């Protein structure tokens, strides 16, 4: 494969990737379908912002957000059914159940662990140790600005955590299972080893004091923007949207089988971080995964970082201290 030069890199040399918006197919169908799949994303974003901006206090609570999220997921699954981006990514019963398992794990077990050692607990300890006052002046800023700050600060942290995962081997081992997914669907963001899901959820937003409503607004931005990174829906995404925000197209390049492609588009919501730091590739890919698209089942996903870490740690020690060399084995090349 020849690949295409993007900046200083050749994208698509080791796996099929389509580079450039002009090469991406558009929604096929009548005018109503065209209209819906062109304006759906911005309409939902503005609707969510309006809702959380004006919802009375009794309604503007976390449980409302959870209920909306549930209905939203069902709606997006229906969109995947109506207008899939790739037929080969169509959700099957088994794949859907497997995705639901990872989501369930995040809602129960990982959430429980998070409450003890997650960012909330860490930042609480940091603040307690240094007796810092929160940056309380943030609460006086306009609500939407607060929400943008929360969303962008969190995503900035996520960008660098994600980029570190692709560049430092111990972190890569936690993230690798997520790269074994062979198709994108709404719930695929939850697929991965729990250690990675814990790490990627860490943020520094809690260090600052924002109004609760601003957090709900920021959550609404994440729900109506970041959610599309793993979705099997063909949209005619507006130009301004795909300039600012991460899209399913961007994220499919990140999951492609092309090594350089996977080293692109690290952000979750704001693709402008990638544009700023030189890692953005505008394009898309259909053929995804690692090791030529080998599927990783749930059991292996759970043990992978530990198993590989153990094997590689042992091999490294043997090499370092000149002990008997470990039996040769296929070296797992980080996609990075």
């Amino acid at each position, binding site marked *: 494969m020849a690949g295409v030069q993007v900046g200083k890199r050749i994208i698509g040399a080791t796996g099929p990737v389509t580079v450039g918006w002009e090469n991406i197919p558009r929604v096929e169908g009548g005018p109503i379908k065209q209209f819906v799949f062109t304006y759906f994303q911005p309409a939902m974003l503005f609707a969510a912002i309006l809702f959380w901006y004006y919802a009375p206090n009794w309604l503007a609570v976390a449980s409302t957000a959870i209920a909306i999220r549930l209905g939203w997921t069902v709606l997006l699954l229906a969109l995947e059914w109506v207008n899939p981006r790739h037929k080969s990514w169509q959700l*099957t019963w088994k794949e859907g*159940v497997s995705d639901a398992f990872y989501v369930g794990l995040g809602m129960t077990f990982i959430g429980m662990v998070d409450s003890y050692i997650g960012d909330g607990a860490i930042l609480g300890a940091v603040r307690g140790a240094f007796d810092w006052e929160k940056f309380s002046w943030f*609460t006086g800023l306009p609500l939407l600005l607060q929400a943008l700050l929360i969303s962008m600060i969190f995503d900035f942290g996520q960008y660098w955590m994600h980029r570190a995962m692709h560049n430092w081997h111990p972190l890569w081992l936690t993230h690798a299972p997520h790269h074994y997914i062979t198709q994108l669907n709404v719930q695929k963001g939850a697929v991965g080893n729990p250690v990675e899901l814990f790490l990627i959820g860490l943020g520094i937003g809690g260090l600052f004091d924002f109004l609760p409503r601003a957090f709900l607004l920021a959550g609404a931005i994440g729900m109506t923007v970041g959610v599309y990174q793993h979705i099997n829906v063909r949209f005619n995404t507006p130009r301004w949207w795909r300039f600012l925000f991460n899209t399913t197209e961007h994220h499919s390049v990140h999951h492609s089988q092309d090594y350089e492609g996977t080293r692109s588009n690290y952000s979750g919501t704001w693709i402008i971080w990638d544009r700023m730091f030189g890692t953005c590739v505008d394009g898309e890919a259909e053929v995804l995964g690692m090791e030529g698209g080998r599927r990783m089942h749930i059991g292996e996903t759970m043990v992978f970082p530990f198993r590989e870490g153990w094997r590689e740690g042992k091999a490294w020690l043997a090499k370092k201290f000149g002990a008997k060399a470990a039996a040769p084995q296929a070296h797992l090349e980080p996609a990075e």
Partner: protein
Amino acid sequence: MSEASGPWGATSRPERTSRGFSLPYIDMIWRVRGEVPIDPALAPEEAFARLDPLLRMDGTTVAAEGNTLTYAKLNPAAQDKLATFTRGRLWIERAGAGAVLRFDLFSHALLLCFLAPLLFLGFAQLAVSLNDYEAAAAKAEASQKDKKDDDKPKPVKKLNPIDEFLGAPAPEDPNKKKDKKDEDEGRHSPEPGYFLAGLFAALYLLGRWLEPWLVRRRFRAALATPVDPAAT
């Protein structure tokens, strides 16, 4: 070819040999049996050749002997049409002038989905237990030191004038709501666990109905399609 040794062990159907404890219908949870009518003129080799495109996928081992075919899959790809059924036995039976393809399929996915509610009920129970444990620990701690910081009035946060102008509701006064809510609910909620247990039970029922229906439809479609000599 005789019996193949697949990734899950021997692929032929293990016959029940023990006469002791048995639950007659329990294997309906993970096993799917059924039949598809076939053209009686179809030789077994031809019938299995027609099924071959369905079966010939990465990670699948297939063995055919006489009128019986067995297969086993190791972690099939998401788009493998038989991905739900990780091993199976198919055989042709003739009755009078007609013939049927019978199948007996085993599904790890159905079994695990059936068991998943137990796992999530376990997580819900864990949440309840942790709450109880923490409530007890907090009680012990509270009895040792008297609570003082709660009485300090918290600052009331105000909206930015722009938001006031646009009509966003003002933040609540944090001093007002000192309900019993905080005391009743612990750090963890068992509700997601209960919800997910119910969800997986529903997904199991859906899958137990949908997947056999789909597999029957796929077998029927494959058997009705003659093998294209150019494709082989």
